[in-house]
């Protein structure tokens, strides 16, 4: 009997000691290399705290935080897309914390690094660009692209890859950047031309760097750390920023209703500290720190957005982005993702016609180009509440949902008809 009491006492002691140590649950969409590095370094510095990584996609992460009862929520939310933090902040799931951040400027270009409301903080910076497989390029004799517009050239047909903005926040930012940099109509023309050259519109954003890394695709449109990390891991890939790109922060926030806010603050502070920022330079992580001083310790050739080595001509407007978020995603899916085969065929036919005509003006070809590479939504319509509103309709708003389905169906069938007609016209152009 005595023995049993001892066992219970020991068990109780273990449980209570376990309860004293603070557990910091971190919901994140970041890859294992990054989370593992922070967990290890942080736990070494604060041996009494335990970091618990909950690896979830951004939207799964939001759902997870939302579904936990206040008091048992995770401590930290850490992800790229600023929109995700806006959603959480709007639902009062984040809390404002006072964590000093010396050495971190307020803005990158004209984009605020930290949330002006103070609900979340920029922890690293990310820009978009392209990554290419040097062996693939060599085998297919492809020149290295410099700007987005290069990807519309016939030589790249079937060698490019990107992912759909509806499935990945990072690719949404990429296309929104093009739209803001080039303007709505010109931007869509460019996006449609690039998409027409794509070998595949992948289901996940990771599908793109993965495909470039193993040589399935020649060039991929990716967020910088994918490109930099692949190169640093020894793969025959390169990465470059085009001049129309945006640098936006990847963020970190303390969740409201977390078990231990104090520990959460400690962790957040750590990620923003000199030590925490330095971890970002690890070749397998390769992210851009927000602390300017950290770049002094970076290896030669490491991109520095504060020094002007990345020319970002676009000042990203997140309000504009948010106002048309769902329209851009849905439009992309209806006219590109779901109609990719037709778009590819039309693009191919147009490129062949151009080659055949060798610069001669041809009405049929012009008509074909117009049909294939014009967005069914005009710049004016893109600001129209009648089009924007149904896409933000709440669940249960049946009229809104119906209108949305109707619009999507309209875009999709119009796109299909246009692509087929464009292919016919281009094939007939002599």
């Amino acid at each position, binding site marked *: 009997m005595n023995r049993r009491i001892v066992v219970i006492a020991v068990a109780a002691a273990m449980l209570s000691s376990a309860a004293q140590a603070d557990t910091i649950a971190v919901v994140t969409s970041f890859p294992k290399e990054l989370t593992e590095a922070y967990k290890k370094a942080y736990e070494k510095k604060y041996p009494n705290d335990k970091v*618990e990584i909950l690896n979830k996609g951004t939207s*799964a992460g939001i759902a997870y935080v939302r579904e936990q009862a206040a008091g048992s929520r995770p401590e930290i939310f850490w992800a790229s897309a600023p929109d995700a933090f806006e959603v959480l902040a709007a639902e009062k799931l984040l809390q404002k914390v006072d964590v000093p951040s010396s050495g971190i400027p307020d803005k990158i270009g004209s984009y605020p690094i930290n949330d002006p409301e103070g609900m979340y903080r920029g922890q690293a910076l990310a820009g978009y660009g392209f990554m290419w497989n040097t062996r693939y390029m060599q085998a297919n004799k492809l020149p290295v692209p410099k700007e987005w517009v290069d990807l519309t050239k016939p030589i790249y047909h079937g060698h490019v890859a990107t992912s759909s903005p509806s499935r990945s926040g990072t690719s949404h930012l990429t296309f929104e950047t093009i739209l803001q940099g080039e303007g709505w109509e010109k931007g869509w023309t460019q996006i449609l031309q690039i998409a027409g050259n794509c070998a595949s519109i992948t289901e996940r954003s990771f599908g793109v760097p993965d495909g470039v890394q193993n040589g399935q695709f020649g060039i991929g449109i990716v967020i910088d750390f994918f490109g930099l990390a692949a190169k640093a891991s020894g793969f025959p890939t390169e990465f470059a920023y085009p001049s129309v790109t945006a640098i936006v922060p990847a963020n970190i926030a303390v969740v409201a209703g977390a078990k231990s806010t104090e520990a959460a603050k400690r962790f957040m502070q750590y990620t923003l500290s000199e030590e925490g920022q330095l971890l970002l330079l690890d070749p397998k992580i390769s992210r851009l720190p927000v602390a300017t001083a950290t770049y002094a310790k970076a290896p030669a050739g490491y991109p520095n957005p504060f020094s002007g080595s990345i020319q970002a001509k676009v000042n990203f407007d997140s309000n504009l982005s948010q106002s048309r978020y769902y329209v851009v995603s849905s439009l992309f899916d209806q006219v590109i993702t779901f109609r990719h085969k037709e778009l590819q065929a039309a693009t191919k036919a147009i490129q062949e016609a151009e080659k055949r005509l060798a610069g001669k003006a041809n009405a049929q070809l012009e008509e074909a180009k117009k049909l294939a590479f014009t967005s069914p939504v005009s710049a004016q319509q893109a600001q129209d509440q009648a089009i924007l509103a149904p896409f933000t309709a709440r669940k249960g708003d049946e009229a809104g949902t119906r209108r949305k389905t109707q619009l999507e169906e309209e875009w999709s069938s119009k796109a299909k008809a246009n692509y087929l007609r464009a292919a016919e016209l281009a094939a007939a152009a002599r």
Partner: protein
Amino acid sequence: MTAAIALAIAAFLVAFLAYPVASVVYTAFAGGDGGLTFAHFVTFFQISLMRESFWNSLYVAGLSVVFASLIAVPLAYFTVRYRFRGAVLIQTLGVLPLIMPPFVGAVAMQLLFGRSGSVNLLLNDAFGFRIPFMEGLNGVIFVESLHYFPFILLNLVVAMQNIDGAMEESAQNLGASGWRLFRRIVFPLAMPGYVAGASLVFVKVFDDLGTPLVLGATNMLAPQAYLRITSVGIEDPIGYVISVLMIAFSVAALWMSARLLKGRDYSTLQRGGTSLQRRELRGFQAVAAYGWIGVILLLVLSPHLGILLMSFSKVWSFSVLPEGFTLAHYATVFTQSPRMIGNTLLYCGLAAFIDVVLGTAIAYIILRTRLPGRQALDSLASAALAIPGVVLAIGYLRAFKGLELPFVEGTFTATWVALMLAYAVRRLPYALRSCMAALQQMHVSLEEAAENLGASKASTVRRIVIPLMAGGILAGFVTSFITAAVELSATIVLSSSASQAPMSYGIYLYMQSIAGRGPGAALGVIAVVLVGLGTYFSYWLMHRRSAATAVQAHVPAIPATAAAQLG
């Protein structure tokens, strides 16, 4: 005493199988006002992505059956029909794919058969064309057919062996031969076995979550169920509609296979003569047969080979073979994730332990007692076969939402206990079959003798029954353990924290980043070796057991292991 144990088992099964599944089904039909409605199903078919996913799942499952049949039917025919030395090879072929969880091999297949994979690079160099093995859904079909064809092979071999040779002779006397003989006589008679195998392949492919996720083909039903529940939220009815559709397809296919397997008896009834006559392979036939087996063997081994190469390679990109080999990935795994290997051993060990305890108890109750309603226990435990892993996991999330356990931090579904119980419930049918078989082979007179000598019921069970069943119990334990170790469907839904995650989830996590591919492959190799050793061990156990008791097992040991892999 027995009644109390039976009740306890029933309570366990109701709590962790029937109730979660019922809550999934209920949610799919529940209207906002508490009534029942079909509205969610209507909504489901109104969403174009869902319609697309539904058709994609049917298409992938259907074509996987076709390709699996193309591989399996000739192989089965060779073994039964001809006297030749490939029998061992074919037996090996029946096991090799099964020890490799398809999601592990999927990534390696991209490097071998992808757009710029080894095979296509060689093809393009030599002939200037490529074959789109891995483009979109093709990849899923390719990987799944290679993984699941043994189900058709093994069932078909058994069915063909049971055909009465007189049937064939009569047909030959009436002038049929060659292809006509096969098409009109042999294949129709073996049909039940074929359909049983094919329906299993269909269900397994239809339910698989890991392979489409790893290959990035998310527009299918299982990935959509997972994505809806995890990102839209636990209240989203569409996830439950998908779950109900998946259960319906599983139940229908398993019911069909069970019915047809029963129907197989008609051929054995009129047996008495010889089975199919075996022939020698002649010249070109031998070449064709060995050639085909060689090709299949190469294909079947390719995921194994690919993952092994990946785990040792420094860089493998746009080249036929990786350049530079390293042990660094294994070092990464052992420094970063020894905990995951430990977790797998702990969870699967506990799950398998629960399975054999329950399995032994249920077997004893069914075979040795006259408890009313005892068959219901068997049916309930076996029902787990028809529940896809992702559905059971969603059921846990739904049914035990917010349930807090004493002494444990966090909710029940956030702890590993939920994961371990899901493993136990899903693997129980295999352990149960194994325990039943062991008890059936033991004559009841041994127990009577013990009781005559004054032993109580309890001590008879403890000192006579269990020791004599030990072989079967151990085999059941191993089967439960190895199948749980490589299951991803329930794991991925129920795992939330990285420190509590088992190996299968670890492999998935690693595979999500570029630098993680190597360590992911290394962890995959470790899992395959673990499962391979386990399979060999259970095969050896069963073999030894059947030899020792001199009971000629009707079904060969390999199909038994294969059937166990149904997880």
